[in-house]
């Protein structure tokens, strides 16, 4: 500050050297001005919220600019203006806009516990588990009518859903998997942390609807429909090995799959089974780069681990011929893990969650890309569970995904679980006022599984640090056929 005052005075003397004789007074004057400087500390929450607002506004402007540009090109090049042509350009503009949004991580703080009570939809307490139980009971009745038997003592239903077809064949051994924590001491750390919720401005769908509403489809007068919004949209590339794009504007997600009409019938199996992870990831990287899919908020691509266990399982199966080709080495999935504020996101099974690229290894081509989302979130602070004993108990009960111990098991396999890392767990929040759920990203501990078994596909156990932890008795198993049903 002294240096600054000295510089200020020297600048004054350069203009008017006579003022040097009044230095004491000028020094006092400058110091008084400095001491009167108001405290203008800006509120950082205001800074973040305004940035979010600007990013949203900017996206709207980019959308309009892109749509206008495409419309301008359409007219200036004297194309025949048909509904289909215009729609294609609108979709292209929208697609580009979604990618632009996907590159910007924007988080608006919504206050403390602003999302209400958070219920983790674990295997033990969700509606699908209850529905699966009901379905399985129906299946039991049907099988009884046709002479098959269901083990009368086996509890029915399984959290993964799947309806009446989800009945496990009679196993040669009924195996219980027991998760044993051996990672030593750990701490949760702070008892407060942020939960994130993905948000949707809805501006794209309204703007698209307003343009589509002006089209003449010769079937119906779209102008007569009021307050239209585009909820979903699908468009296909009309070329060899073309793709179909599916955009869901309600959830701001985009997925890509093969346009099956333009892909040759697949006959070869197993031709490319020796591809390395690096080669597989390179195919996915090139696809993302070619289509301009922004992965700014995602980690490096990784070959999905569950695929390996599925392959191991298929190879060790007694009936490999009935195993789906999707569980052989002909296909691979590459995950680009999603990262929010430095924390990696996991799904409830403990797999890293993010952009998922499916690759056909025989064709060496990408066949699908999904979980391509925008990155605009709200955040809210919640109190965390910090009781380590309670957490370990939950881990040994299988974590969010659960684990059922069969009472008449003939074999028990211990699966060792190591020291956890912090991450975010993807879950969904249902809102009865909306036709769809919101994605929530909840602070969680991710416990790695350190010992493996060919029948155990899990790589980690997730424990949300918010919400009630269900007990082991709540977990429902897959129904079993009895030996006489074979």
């Amino acid at each position, binding site marked *: 500050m002294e240096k600054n005052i000295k510089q200020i005075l020297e600048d004054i003397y350069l203009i008017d050297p006579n003022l040097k004789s009044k230095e004491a007074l000028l020094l006092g*004057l*400058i110091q008084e001005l400095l*001491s009167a400087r108001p405290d203008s500390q800006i509120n950082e929450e205001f800074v973040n919220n305004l940035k979010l607002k600007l990013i949203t506004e900017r996206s709207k402007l980019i959308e309009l600019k892109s749509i206008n540009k495409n419309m301008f090109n359409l007219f200036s090049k004297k194309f025949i203006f048909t509904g289909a042509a215009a729609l294609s350009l609108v979709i292209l503009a929208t697609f580009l806009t979604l990618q632009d949004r996907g590159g910007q991580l924007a988080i608006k703080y919504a206050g403390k516990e602003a999302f209400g009570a958070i219920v983790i939809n674990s295997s033990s307490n969700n509606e699908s588990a209850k529905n699966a139980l009901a379905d399985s009971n129906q299946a039991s009745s049907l099988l009884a009518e046709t002479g098959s038997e269901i083990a009368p003592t086996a509890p029915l239903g399984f959290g993964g859903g799947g309806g009446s077809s989800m009945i496990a064949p009679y196993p040669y051994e009924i195996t219980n998997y027991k998760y044993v924590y051996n990672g030593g001491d750990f701490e949760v750390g702070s008892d407060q942390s942020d939960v994130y919720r993905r948000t949707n401005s809805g501006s794209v769908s309204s703007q698209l609807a307003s343009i589509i509403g002006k089209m003449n489809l010769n079937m119906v007068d779209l102008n007569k429909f009021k307050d239209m919004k585009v909820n979903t949209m699908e468009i296909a590339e009309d070329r060899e090995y073309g793709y179909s794009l599916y955009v869901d504007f309600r959830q701001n997600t985009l997925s890509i799959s093969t346009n099956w009409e333009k892909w040759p019938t697949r006959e070869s199996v197993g031709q490319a089974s020796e591809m390395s992870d690096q080669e597989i990831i390179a195919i996915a990287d090139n696809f993302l780069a070619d289509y301009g899919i922004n992965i700014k908020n995602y980690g490096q691509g990784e070959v999905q681990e569950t695929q390996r266990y599925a392959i191991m399982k298929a190879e060790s199966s007694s009936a490999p011929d009935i195993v789906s080709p999707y569980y052989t080495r002909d296909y691979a999935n590459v995950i680009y893990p999603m990262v929010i504020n430095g924390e990696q996101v996991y799904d409830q099974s403990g797999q890293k969650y993010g952009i998922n690229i499916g690759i056909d290894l025989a064709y060496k081509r990408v066949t699908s890309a999904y979980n391509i989302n925008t990155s605009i979130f709200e955040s809210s602070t919640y109190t965390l569970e910090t009781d380590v004993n309670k957490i370990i108990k939950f881990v040994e009960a299988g974590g969010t995904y659960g684990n059922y111990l069969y009472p008449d098991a003939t074999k028990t396999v211990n699966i060792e679980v190591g020291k956890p890392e912090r991450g975010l767990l993807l879950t969904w929040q249902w809102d009865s006022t909306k036709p769809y759920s919101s994605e929530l990203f909840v602070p969680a501990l991710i416990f790695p599984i350190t010992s493996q078994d060919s029948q155990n596909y899990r790589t980690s156990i997730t424990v949300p640090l918010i919400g009630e932890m269900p007990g082991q008795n709540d977990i429902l198993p897959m129904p079993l056929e009895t030996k006489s049903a074979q």
Partner: protein
Amino acid sequence: MKIFTGDAADINLESFPDLYDQYVRKIFNFIYYKTHHKETAEDLTSQTFLKALKNLSQFNQKKGHFSTWLYQIARNQVIDFYRSKKNDINIEDIWDLAGNEDIPRDFDTAHRLEKVESYLKKLRPDQREIVLLRVWEGLSYKEIAKIVDKDEAQCRVVFSRTIKTIKDEMPLAVFLSLLLFFH
């Protein structure tokens, strides 16, 4: 954070969030020194950036630096705010209204400014802006020149002459108290 030089290639919708990061605190301070009220300053800062974003295509680098354009928007927002409140075309900022009780001011700031307010109020808005940017913000004349859209030499002259004016017009009692207080 990317630092923008103001080159035309830098200023576009894509780069706007980075431009915001670079200027938001400076613009907020600039407005706060003209309003002395945090809520008003936040409101006018929001309006400044929203207006800049919506009119970004109109920014012409040949006519001036980006920061000059942005500060001009902020300056106009403040002027519009007070003129609409008082329906008086001569009001530029809170300095023209200080002492008016129906205009909100942060208590701490009003208290801090008590000693200097009398002579800062007498300055022309452009003189006051240069003095406060130099003394409170510690900006160089090069930076000030871009904000007030004058050249560096003009800014130096305005600053020196304004300080001399304050000294000359300072009441004798204040003159003596400064000498006694700081020596």
